[in-house]
């Protein structure tokens, strides 16, 4: 293995799971989500000589992923990942049920709100990094995050009310 490849393995490869987690919620088809991550890693490998080692590698990889996603946008329909009904039915304990409800509430958001919550809350990126990844002003990220949090709470409150009513 070359030095460059060894470095890529250590710096970039540990983040494929994070990329896949986000890609699965951008693209409806799981195989297409994997292809998107593979394309991302290939582009990252090709541009690895340009990566500045003192910057956030995850933010760099996510920027490549979203560029690839937008470039392929006409092919990859933006849609939330879905959990098969059987899988949901199997999860009967209350903790699993709560997890499924939160996951479903996230999927019911629009792609912009879902994206900022995934990047900011789940992946722990800063508003500035998200702004850079999505090529939007930081103010846009802040307002999307605020609206997304509110929408999530509304979704979960609705689900809670529906459960109590039934």
């Amino acid at each position: 293995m070359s030095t460059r490849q060894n470095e890529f393995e250590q710096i970039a490869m540990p983040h494929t799971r994070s990329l896949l987690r986000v890609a699965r919620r951008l693209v409806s088809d799981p195989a297409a989500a994997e292809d998107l991550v593979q394309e991302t890693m290939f582009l990252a490998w090709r541009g690895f000589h340009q990566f500045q080692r003192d910057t956030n590698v995850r933010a760099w990889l996510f920027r490549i992923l979203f560029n690839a996603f937008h470039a392929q946008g006409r092919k990859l329909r933006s849609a939330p990942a879905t959990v098969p009904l059987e899988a949901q039915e199997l999860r009967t304990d209350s903790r699993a049920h709560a997890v499924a409800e939160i996951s479903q509430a996230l999927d019911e958001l629009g792609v912009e709100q879902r994206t900022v919550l995934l990047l900011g809350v789940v992946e722990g990126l800063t508003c500035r990094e998200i702004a850079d990844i999505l090529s939007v002003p930081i103010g846009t990220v802040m307002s999307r995050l605020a609206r997304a949090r509110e929408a999530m709470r509304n979704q979960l409150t609705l689900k809670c009310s529906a459960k109590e009513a039934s």
Partner: protein
Amino acid sequence: MTCKEAIALSPLFLSGELDSARGVEFEAHLQACSSCARELREQKAMDAHLREAILEEPLESAELDRRVRQSLVRPTRWRWIAAAAGVAAALVIAGLFFRVSSPGAIVYADAAEDHRREVVEQQARRWTSDQSAIDAIAQGQGVSPSGIRAPEAGGYRLERAKLCRLNGNLYLHLVYSDGAQEFSLFLRHREQEPITEPANAGDRQNEHLAAFRTAASSAVVVTEQNGGAALRLAKLAARAL
């Protein structure tokens, strides 16, 4: 700091991006305003639940890691030459077809791009090369197994298959070889949703395309071989499909 300002700045506070002066102001506001303090507590709690829930979901990435590693170790020189040629061709095709802006035109551009990535550049994909499994995939798409083998009479060996999406629609992607060059045949059962362009053929730098429609199928053939090679395979396939 007003409540409105505090709520607007809350995303920066939660991500730890408020500078120290604004941070002190923000904290002071929370001390004085129970409503904003409760709002922040609820946001933090929801963030924690969301993070835990999503990170708890099963996610299998071992096979993906393997495919990524496989794509890194391919001979670099060939990849660069192929990628450069392919990108140039794809741009020309996209430029020509997107001006037309029809669903069929987008299918052609997608087909050329998939052929470049998956066949010319050999980016790792989940191909099926077992012949009976290929038959099963074809049947699942309403395509006759004997039809996809018809080009073998003309010296084209069916090597592998997978399902793919062109313009968002599912197609059967078959790869044939004549011993020297590989050909992609993208096939879709007509009843599912035919492409709308008339049968034609085109030469575009590195990638050459031919398309046809029969009563049962719509198809696009892509290859890097010129001299009407795409059209020859298209004709063989069209007779049988």
